[in-house]
């Protein structure tokens, strides 16, 4: 699973490191508008709750939460646009 995530190429990368709640989620929402259906958005966040928040958000609005890669001091959260 980790290899699969690592190999994914994101259509767009959003750096929301340093943003406080609910900033990373709002950044994801804004950025997803520039991603085609089926493509992947990669969100960087230093807020440890973002991965959980984005997972709930994706399920609600119809995107596919792919998972999280841990980087140095932040998470790379991967979501595939579903609609």
């Amino acid at each position, binding site marked *: 699973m980790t290899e699969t995530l690592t190999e994914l190429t994101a259509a767009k990368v959003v750096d929301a490191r340093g943003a406080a*709640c609910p900033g990373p989620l709002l950044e994801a929402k804004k950025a997803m508008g520039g991603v085609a259906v089926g493509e992947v958005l990669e969100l960087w966040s230093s807020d440890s709750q973002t991965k959980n928040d984005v997972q709930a958000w994706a399920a*609600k609005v119809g995107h596919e939460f792919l998972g999280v890669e841990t980087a140095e001091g932040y998470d790379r959260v991967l979501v595939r646009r579903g609609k």
Partner: protein
Amino acid sequence: MADHEKLVVMVTHGPEDPELATIPFAMAGAAVASDVDVVMGFQGEGCELVKKGVAETIHADEFAPLGELLETIKEMGGQLLVCSPCIKKRHLTEDDLVDGAEIVAAGRFVAEVTDATNSLVY
């Protein structure tokens, strides 16, 4: 069930309590990001938050700046309704409020809340 979910967020705390002033904006922001229609209602001290120039001065620890949240909520279609008697009591007019804020009376608030999927009161 309506075509769209709608959340009403009532705000009654002002700049005197940055955290409780910001939390409703954080919730409303998450709601618009989740494709939920949002109506924010401002009553009492909450009205101070939609006076021009006030939101930008509020930044509660560990939260996004209130001014940024307000702008995002407006950009994403959130409505801002402000209590008419609360505004009169403070000797304010629509010109004193941020663009997009609408002064309304109790009946409108009741209509919005009873029409909503859910409501939150802060």
